[in-house]
């Protein structure tokens, strides 16, 4: 398990990091927490000649909550997400999901930016951020631009981020007052999801007034299911509405068979996760 050799860089500003990425080109990779990249490097599935460590970059880690709006620096670790009281109040869905990622040691190192930029369909944060309708800030040689989480993922390890861009910040509106739930089925603690569902909903007069649904590890990218949300809105969240939402979600996902099970099983678990998530979100709305 010896990774390939590389030269190590530790830039101090995001501009310097972006310049390094641009000048070193394809041979360079940024490393955040390293808990997706280093395992890949050990297997030599990744062998960058230059590693650009973002840990020393000023201002990339931190959580700001103001007026219900949340901004999170890319280098904020999952541990920091769990510990932040203001975030837990403004967007408790994030904490609930972060607690279900990996194990304590991984969460001390793994960052939200790395989890989102990685592009592995098994990662939990991308679906979560689609549910929250987050926007990502990407910094490249020509400056910064924003891409919505719902438009960021094209396929496995294929995202809207250009090779010379660095994900610097994640922004979304808090969901105070909305019901929320992150339901994840995994084989053991520390495992990626067999299926996971992120749900937000608002109730008015006993009926669902708004909903957002995203599914994880059930396709080559996270799946934001507008159709599942539409099936819930306007309903009292009765059995018919739940059946319709599950059917709609099934139309959007495309799971593949792997060590976590055959396609039929994944579809079954996806339905169970969505039902549980809607029920728990409703109980909190």
């Amino acid at each position, binding site marked *: *398990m*010896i*990774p*390939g*050799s*590389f*030269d*190590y860089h*530790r830039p101090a500003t995001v501009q310097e990091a972006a310049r390094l990425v641009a000048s070193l080109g394809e041979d360079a990779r940024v*490393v955040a927490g*390293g*808990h997706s990249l*280093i*395992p890949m*490097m*050990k297997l030599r599935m990744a062998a960058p*000649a230059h*590693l650009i*460590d973002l*840990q020393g970059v000023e201002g990339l880690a931190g959580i700001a909550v103001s007026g219900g709006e949340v901004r999170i620096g890319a280098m904020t670790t999952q*541990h920091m997400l769990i510990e932040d009281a203001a975030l837990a109040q403004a967007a408790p869905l994030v904490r609930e999901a972060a607690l279900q990622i*990996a*194990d*304590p*040691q*991984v969460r*001390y*190192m793994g960052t939200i930016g790395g989890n989102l930029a990685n592009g592995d369909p098994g990662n939990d944060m991308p679906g979560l951020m689609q549910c929250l309708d987050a926007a990502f800030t990407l910094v490249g040689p020509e400056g910064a631009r924003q891409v919505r989480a719902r438009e960021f993922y094209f396929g496995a390890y294929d995202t809207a981020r250009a090779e010379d861009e660095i994900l610097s910040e994640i922004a979304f509106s808090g969901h105070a007052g909305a019901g929320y739930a992150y339901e994840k089925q995994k084989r053991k*603690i*520390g495992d990626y999801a067999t299926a996971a569902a992120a749900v937000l909903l608002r109730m008015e007069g006993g009926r669902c007034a708004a909903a957002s649904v995203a599914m994880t590890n059930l396709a080559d990218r996270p799946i934001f299911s507008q159709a599942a949300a539409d099936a819930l809105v306007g309903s009292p969240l009765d059995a018919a509405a739940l059946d319709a939402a599950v059917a709609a979600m099934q139309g959007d996902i495309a799971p593949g068979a792997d060590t976590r099970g055959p396609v039929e099983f994944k579809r079954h678990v996806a339905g169970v996760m969505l039902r549980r998530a809607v029920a728990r979100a409703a109980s909190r709305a």
Partner: protein
Amino acid sequence: MSKMHVKLTVNGKAVEALAEPRTLLIHFLREELGITGPHIGCESSHCGACTVDMGGRSVKACTMFVAQANGAEITTVEGLAAADGTLHPLQEAFREHHGLQCGYCTPGMITRAYRLLQENPSPTEAEVRFGLAGNLCRCTGYQNIVKAVLAAAPVMQAQKEAAE
């Protein structure tokens, strides 16, 4: 790919060495520094036997390049006992409550439990289990490990209060 100059503080001592950036921290500790408390169980980020404390975080030293650790303060299980050899309350509790059998997982368990109890000085049993979820043990069935950590918590508290 040249070697780089790394400077760390390990168990309170300043350490300097030339190392390839790709050297995993666990290999650096064990082979370069001869600190063999942290073990290599899986070498694939799953078992926690390699856990060390780095700047107040429990980290798996098999999933960290020495280059990333450059400048950090690291504590391994060797750094927990007092200077006169008196065992740390966690080490004492593991002995007292039979929290180990073969001992392979023990340095990682104790180092992880050390950080857990700094952050949550009086955890519930469920919190101990959740907090140790990144450490695997093939021998004990975890019961006595959890017991030991729960027993060490008030002792560590009392020591802290006495020191204040």
